[in-house]
């Protein structure tokens, strides 16, 4: 790309440009057409025409509706012709919000196109003025396989992400600031903006919701740390045993553990959940083996259930860590161990002084990513306990093993409190963001260390 055009921003392009450049701020693509890129210029103009048509036909109204989220309520009206009351449909706040979000996203995309066309026009102008070759449309398309390959390869992901991830996410985030709960369900009812009220209810002390939120958050954090570190150390120890010298049939041993990983987790989790039930096989066997007289409340007592899910997660998570760690263990320089052995270090000292610091150094980012994904470990909890045991202490369907995410899911699926679900989603985001920032500062420090030796 031309360096002069690159230095300009969209204000300087306007002040320095000719009349076509200035006009292309209003009619997209004029500068391109003037400077020999007729096809490209027409394309820009066409896109603009499409956008304006969309806004006139629907988008403008959708955006305007966003401020109120609908005003006319569904109501009964007397139809004199037939002589009965009829349902008159009112506004559907949910659809208004959704269409509004679509209009916003399309507008943002248009602004991006606008900026892009201005830069592209300026680029063409500068090149033409300095007598360089101006790319034709065909050449531009051909450049997609070369210097602009990112546009080719990323266009599909960007399109997909903005339609099915960014837009829905934006929609749900907005929902956190509405009162779209059980009592405000469209189409029968309208919902409206309420500002930060939902956050207030969840976070402030004294509210019934906050009396549920804080304990659930506490268990989420405990679970996250317990699940991550048990699997991390378990997997590391297992990998060290399998990879240690003198163990034959390494592949066989690895396979035994990897099988749990290969079976889809919802199957193993459902099976283990049925095995842990009051009349499940574990209780049957424990009684037959003489360990206990009564059935143990593996999943029905709060403390038992919490330990059970951590244990089952250990069973599922250790092989994953084991596989990952195996690769890293092989990278530890063998000389370190040999010289340690010469100095008379035992296996435990070697682990403490060599293996563990090395692993810790390499895997910190992985560990933090793992921690975040465990805070959001929907599968284990949902398929194992479904959040049970239930309790009267908690509000809105939360159970004693519910994490924030599973509670979020219940709020959307069972009680339709979308506003609370969205608020919890934002809080989860905040927690994840904090840990990610920690991870970043850690890995920055590590880069300066420049390798463990």
């Amino acid at each position, binding site marked *: 790309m031309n360096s002069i055009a690159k230095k300009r921003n969209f204000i300087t392009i306007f002040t320095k440009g000719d009349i076509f450049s200035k006009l292309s701020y209003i009619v997209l693509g004029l500068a391109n057409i003037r400077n020999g890129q007729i096809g490209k210029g027409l394309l820009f103009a066409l896109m603009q025409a499409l956008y304006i048509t969309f806004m006139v036909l629907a988008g403008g109204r959708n955006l305007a509706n966003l401020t109120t989220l609908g005003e006319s309520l569904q109501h009964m009206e007397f139809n004199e012709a037939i002589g009965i009351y009829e349902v008159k449909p009112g506004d559907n706040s949910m659809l208004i919000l959704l269409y509004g979000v679509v209009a916003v996203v399309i507008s943002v995309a248009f602004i991006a196109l606008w900026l892009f066309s201005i830069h592209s026009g300026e680029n063409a102008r500068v090149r033409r003025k300095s007598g360089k070759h101006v790319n034709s449309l065909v050449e531009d398309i051909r450049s997609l396989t070369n210097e602009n390959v990112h546009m080719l*390869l990323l266009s599909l992901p960007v399109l997909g992400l903005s339609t099915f991830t960014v837009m829905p996410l934006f929609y749900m985030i907005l929902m956190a600031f509405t009162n779209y709960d059980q009592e405000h369900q469209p189409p029968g009812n309208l919902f409206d903006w309420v500002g930060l009220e939902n956050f207030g209810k969840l976070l402030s002390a004294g509210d019934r919701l906050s009396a549920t939120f804080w304990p659930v958050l506490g268990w989420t954090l405990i679970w996250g740390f317990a699940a991550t570190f048990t699997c991390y150390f378990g997997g590391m120890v*297992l990998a060290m045993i399998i990879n240690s010298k003198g163990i034959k049939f390494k592949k066989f041993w690895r396979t035994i553990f990897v099988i749990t990983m290969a079976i889809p987790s919802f199957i193993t989790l459902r099976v283990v959940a049925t095995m842990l039930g009051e009349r499940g096989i574990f209780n049957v066997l424990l009684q037959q083996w003489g360990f206990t007289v009564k059935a143990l409340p593996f999943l029905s007592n709060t403390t038992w259930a919490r330990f059970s899910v951590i244990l089952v997660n250990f069973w599922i998570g250790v092989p994953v860590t084991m596989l990952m760690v195996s690769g890293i263990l092989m990278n530890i320089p063998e000389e370190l161990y040999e010289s340690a052995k010469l100095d008379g270090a035992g296996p435990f000292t070697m682990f403490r002084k060599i293996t563990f610091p090395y692993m810790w150094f390499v895997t910190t980012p992985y560990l933090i990513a793992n921690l975040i994904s465990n805070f959001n470990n929907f599968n284990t909890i949902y398929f194992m306990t479904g959040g049970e045991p239930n309790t009267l202490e908690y509000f809105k369907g939360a159970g004693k093993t519910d994490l924030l995410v599973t509670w979020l899911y219940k709020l959307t699926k069972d009680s339709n409190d979308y506003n609370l679900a969205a608020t919890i989603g934002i809080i989860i985001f905040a927690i994840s963001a904090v840990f990610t920032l920690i991870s970043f500062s850690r890995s920055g420090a590590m880069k300066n260390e420049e390798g463990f030796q």
Partner: protein
Amino acid sequence: MNRKTVIGLNLDYQLKSLIGAVIGVVSLLLPFARTGEKSYSAISLFGRLISSDASSKAVVLLYAAVVLTVISLLLGALSAVKTTVQGIKAWMVIQAVATAAWTLLMFSTKSILEKAGLANGFLNKDLMAGYFIGLVAAYFTLVMVMKMTKTNVGYIALTILGIIWMFPILWIVLTAFRAEQGYYVGYFIPHGFTFDNFLKLFSADAVLPFRRWWVNTLIVAAASCVCNTLIVLGTSFTLSRTRFTGRKAFMNVLMIIGMFPGFMSLIAVYNILKGLGLNQSLLALIIVGAAGAAMGYHVSKGFFDTIPKAIDEAAIIDGASRLQIFTHITLPLSKSIIVYTVLGAFLGAWSDYIFPSMLFGDKQSSYTVAVGLYWLTDFRRIDTYYTQFAAGAVIVAVPIVILFIWLQRFYVEGLSGSVKG
């Protein structure tokens, strides 16, 4: 001190092994278990049980523990007189079996004693010092003998852990072949074996459209293998090997999106799909999967980062375009990461539950296997369908396990490559 030396053995542990073996034999004479007022030693139990005929099969374990512990001491004494590698190895094998018997006694003493009419309502807390000393001595001796033969002690841990890890899986497999229907059975090993559970799932007149679910999942899995892999590899190649304005910003946006819980937006996705007229269709599942696939670029980007830049530069000098570098140079060098990504996409289709369950609602004919199988484990249906559920689980698991074992090497390489980067 005048030490004997034998090549292949470490005789420093011989004395400890012998002490362990002696303690093992002594423990046979100590009280083993109590029933009511009375307590028995292992030897006295041995004597009583061998002469009575009302005994369970598990009594073999008691015999084995007693006999092998004695033999172990004899072998130990023998090898102290004349130390040979074969002698110690034989001792190790005997001791290993004895240790297994001692361990299993913890699970079978109840049935041994009750079948023999010696106890009623026996609990393991009635096991006495004789048992626990014997157990510890068995492990101690085994470890010492293994150290003597320079065998890795890790085998003991691996065996125990392996059994624990395989236990639930064995249960699924056994249940899948169980002839007796129902969820609540009071025994581990089925009384009758049958293939019916599998046949029922696939029979044409089955109540459950399992065949349909299976085909649906296969379609989704195959399609998302292709789409997701192309998108993930394309994205990570671009982010790893090319530099362009907005690259960092793009990665940051992806990271921020990734910090929101994924299914928070499912309701909205569902409404959008409804607007597009795609709800309750398999196509929607494939499209949504592919649309979000780019989020998982990290592992393959990390892998691409490890390929030297010089290769690309040389290719550019030779006149290759970026796209050609991707298809002709980077991809052929990245077999393990391709396999990793394909495998991930394939597995994802089999195990994804939340979105399909929300998407399909009660439209059973488009369920995937995951949704269908989960539907079977609902408490209203679990008793009727438990064995069929297990059979379905086995059918799903077998191909994946085979794939996994076959491609394990690539999986490890792909993962560790990413961590290095």
